[in-house]
């Protein structure tokens, strides 16, 4: 039932849609306005408990706007069983050998997906990393460089842009074969490429120790109380002139806070969870020691407890 303009009645009339013939008919004069309309509802009926593997409503994966044809191509797969029929088993091979403009992109996206799975990153970050990679790939100048480093750097930048930074060491651990130095260089290169492409809008904030606190604390299995104390401590420590990388400061603060609590984590555990070397944590501890009373929150530990801490 709807209202449309009927050319015979010369006015807007009520119109009936006849599903069996696909006609749109004017209810006053009987004129067929549109015939053979295409039914766009689903072809098969699906029931909730019957999904199984072959749900015929949807075919293929989600469309990917980054790929050149939206990911709509068809692939000939290997036939079931072992047909030693030359034609059917080689069709798949022949199709693969043909030129496929997206092949490297698809491979790269798969690598990024693997890396982000290992780190447990959300799909938003993974998609952003894919976008960044596509932008970089568009300019052919990145061919000679270490592809692993470029992919790792794309992921690193995506994490930073979403305000959930991951340390370069963490990215290193899931990137196969890329060293910290290479990822750093690739990151600088990509930033420059992005600036060339998009004007000046590439803004990534500086990292702060507080961004990593939650993650490091949960890696160590600290209680809520200690986590809160550690976060406050890190906030306060930013005011002081401590010349260390924010990650090292975070690691040292975690070490101090756990030493003050009942559940003392050894240096080795803190070093493993944060990726910071034990020696660096010791040195950062030395740097933090003079300001301890101002950094550690009062509700967590009193002066006497601080005195109990070993002095560097």
């Amino acid at each position, binding site marked *: 039932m709807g209202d449309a303009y009927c050319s015979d009645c010369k006015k807007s009339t009520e119109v009936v849609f006849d599903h069996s013939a696909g006609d749109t008919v004017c209810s006053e004069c009987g004129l067929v306005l549109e015939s053979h309309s295409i039914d766009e509802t689903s072809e098969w009926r699906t029931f909730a408990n019957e999904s199984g593997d072959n749900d015929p409503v949807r075919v293929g994966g989600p469309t990917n706007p980054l790929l050149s044809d939206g990911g709509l191509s068809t692939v000939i797969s290997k036939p079931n069983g072992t047909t030693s029929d030359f034609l059917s088993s080689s069709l798949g091979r022949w199709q693969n050998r043909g030129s496929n403009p997206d092949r490297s992109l698809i491979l790269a996206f798969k690598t990024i997906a693997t890396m982000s799975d290992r780190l447990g990153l959300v799909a938003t970050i993974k998609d952003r990393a894919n976008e960044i990679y596509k932008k970089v790939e568009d300019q052919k100048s990145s061919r000679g460089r270490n592809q692993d480093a470029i992919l790792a750097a794309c992921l690193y930048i995506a994490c930073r842009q979403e305000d959930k930074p991951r340390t*370069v060491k963490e990215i290193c651990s899931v990137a196969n074969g890329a060293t910290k130095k290479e990822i750093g260089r690739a990151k600088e290169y990509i930033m420059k490429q992005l600036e060339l492409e998009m004007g*000046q809008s590439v*803004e990534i*904030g500086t990292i702060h120790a507080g961004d990593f606190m939650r993650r490091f604390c949960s890696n160590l299995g600290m209680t809520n109380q200690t986590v809160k104390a550690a976060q406050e401590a890190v906030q306060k420590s930013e005011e002081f*002139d401590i010349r260390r990388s924010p990650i090292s400061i975070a690691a040292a603060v975690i070490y101090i806070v756990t030493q003050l609590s009942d559940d003392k984590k050894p240096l080795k555990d803190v070093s493993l969870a944060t990726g910071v070397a034990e020696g660096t944590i010791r040195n950062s501890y030395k740097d933090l020691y003079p300001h301890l009373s101002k950094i550690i929150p009062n509700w967590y530990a009193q002066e006497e407890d601080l005195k109990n801490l070993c002095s560097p």
Partner: protein
Amino acid sequence: MGDDQVLEASQQVDFDNYPSGIVPIIQNIVSTVNLDCKLDLQAIAQKARNSEYNPKRFAAVMMRIKEPKTTALIFASGKMVCTGAKTKQQSKLAARKYARIIQKLGFPAKFKNFQIQNIVGSCDVNFSIRLESFQISSHGVFSTYEPELFPGLIYRMKKPKIVILVFSTGKIVIAGAKVEDEIYEAFENFFPVLTQYKRVQR
């Protein structure tokens, strides 16, 4: 006596030309010169005393002289790079000395196109700096600060085209100048920005 006079003269000039009160010290000058003749690096490495030549590592002879204390990279095409001098005159003198050594070894070396490529200076502003604040401020376009990768902030000034490394201790390195005045000019431009981001200790 002469030293005292030099000191006084520089302190008088101080606040007129250098309103910041700090004068960067030139640490290194890199220059190139064309000796204009093809050289046999193997022969040079064998005959000359203070030279090293490792063709698998790098395709040039590295020669060092004690006075002025400099190092030169000499290529087979006849081009030479001279580094380590502290003043322009020293750099030119050193380059001439190297050319003389090559001449004495039997090659018809000339002294074409002596040009200073890079001058590096450093100084200390004597106060701590909050590097994170550069990124947020209007200078964020020019600055790169990645504490995980490098502890210093890299500031690329457009005019004059100079790169400044800023460390949180207050030490500054200025590089990329072709003439000494660019270093002083860059520092004078930059000093007010630095004082803005001074770290105030409580």
